[in-house]
């Protein structure tokens, strides 16, 4: 079952609704969302979301503003925990475990998910400490190991050569594109299995955007990546799978090629043609 396309979304959730036997999914490193409903102050923000995210690929969630993309993404690493107005029903199964289950430690859930936010937010410390922060709070103590981790991930995001002599300087002195790569390195340093990107390039200039996009393509060899994006072109460039949402519902989902070349729903065609955005 290594071909993730096989297990993709629409087939699976139609089966689910028909109450037929659920297709056995490649269980490792996938996220499957079942009957997810999210309410914020009695508004039904996400309605009956059923979705399986294939492993080691890039899945882009697209849709107009306010359609619930970001809410869905934040549901995946339980960032709604501190807002009691948000009520969540349904299951989000990550690596065979419902992350909203009773005995789940939220720290473990978040450790599995590296989140890249819209605007880079470096921690108020040096470049080095930014990357070292995650490993440190998760118990890495040896100096040598920390040094190694920091250098490794800074190299991975292509920042090492740029900041080599000044890793002890403040992270806020970096350019915004560099900051976003630093945030990526910081997220990767906690050794997640998934990478979530919430419009991770929308604050960046075209060159930095390109760098981050290239990074995602490289990262999908090892990670399962879920991106929320506002730009269709970006989704077209890097996504393997597309999920199109509108007003809290999944309208259509499928492989990028099929989605763009042969959309099935009228709403999707309208969105792709730019009648609304």
């Amino acid at each position, binding site marked *: 079952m290594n071909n993730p396309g096989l297990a993709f979304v629409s087939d699976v959730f139609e089966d689910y609704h028909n109450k037929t036997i659920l297709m056995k999914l490649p269980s490792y490193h996938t996220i499957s969302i079942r009957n997810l409903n999210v309410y914020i102050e009695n508004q039904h923000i996400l309605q009956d979301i059923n979705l399986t995210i294939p492993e080691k690929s890039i899945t882009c969630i697209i849709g107009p503003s306010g359609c619930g993309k970001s809410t869905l993404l934040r549901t995946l690493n339980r960032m709604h925990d*501190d807002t009691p107005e948000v009520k969540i029903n349904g299951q989000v199964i990550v690596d065979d475990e419902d992350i909203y289950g009773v005995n789940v430690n939220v720290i473990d859930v*978040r450790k599995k998910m590296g989140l890249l*936010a819209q605007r880079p937010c470096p921690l*108020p410390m040096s470049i080095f400490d930014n990357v070292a922060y995650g490993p440190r709070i998760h118990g890495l103590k040896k100096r040598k190991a920390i040094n190694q981790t920091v250098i490794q991930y800074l190299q991975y995001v292509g920042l090492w050569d740029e900041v080599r002599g000044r890793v002890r300087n403040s992270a806020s002195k970096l350019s915004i594109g560099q900051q976003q790569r630093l945030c990526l390195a*910081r997220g990767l340093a*906690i050794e997640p299995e998934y990478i979530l990107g919430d419009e991770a390039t929308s604050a960046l200039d075209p060159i930095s955007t390109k760098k981050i996009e290239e990074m995602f393509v490289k990262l999908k060899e090892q990670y399962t990546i879920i991106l929320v994006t506002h730009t269709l072109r970006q989704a077209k460039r890097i996504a393997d799978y597309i999920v199109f949402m509108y007003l809290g519902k999944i309208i259509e989902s499928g492989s990028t090629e099929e989605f763009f070349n042969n959309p099935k729903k009228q709403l999707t065609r309208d969105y792709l043609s730019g009648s609304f955005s």
Partner: protein
Amino acid sequence: MINTKRQEEIFFKILMIISICVIMSILLFIIGTVLYKGLPALDWDMVSKLPGGGFYLGKEGGVLNAIIGSLYLISGSVVISLTLSVPLVLFINFYLPKKSVFASIIRFSFDILFGVPSIVYGAFGFALMIFLGMRASLLGGIIAVALLIMPIMVRSFDEVTRLLPRDLPDALLSLGATKYEMSKVILRQLMPGLVTAILLAVGRGIGDAATVLFTAGYTDNLPNALNHPAATLPLSIFFQLGSPVEEVQNRAYASAVILTVIILILSFSARYFSSKYSKNKI
């Protein structure tokens, strides 16, 4: 149309300049009076000697006891109110949900406490001391002043904390930090705001006479124990100003100069250390 816009602009600009001038001249007038009357009376004896004539009323000696007493008192109360305020502010901002009613109640009650006159804190401290069987002492003064400055510290620190962009706590939580680990990093970011809160609190606490009148008491000696009375600068000003002798009155202004200089030194050094400490601030 264009003309009215320009007139509007000019009018408000003049209004702003006038208000700056009024405020600055009042401030300069106060400082000027204090310096004019205080500087001639200020000599090295003032800051290095104990009072000569009993309860500051003599013309000899100095106010060393009050300087030391005020410094002890304010450091003690800052320590107490800091250890209580910082956890409280972090709790209502990051542990309680954003629209928490409980947090609003806490904020509201501190707003009320903020407006309570200092003599009431003094009276409350005094009542508390009688209940506990304590005499007027440094400890009593520290507790009363800590109560006085706590609302200032809480509300001003709370205001800067609320302005913190949600990105930072979110970034920390998404890295798998616990709330406690998150708070430690946030505190670094908020350090300049915390320093401002402390300075505001120190400014109010060190200059207040009514709180310490019954609680810390007054003495001609250096404060040497927590359960002994301690002299303070505001009270020394108060007593000296009440004297009919002009020379003693001028010594009150000299004491005021000393108090102002102490606040100035504290605030400059606090700013210096906070900017040094928060060089990584985002």
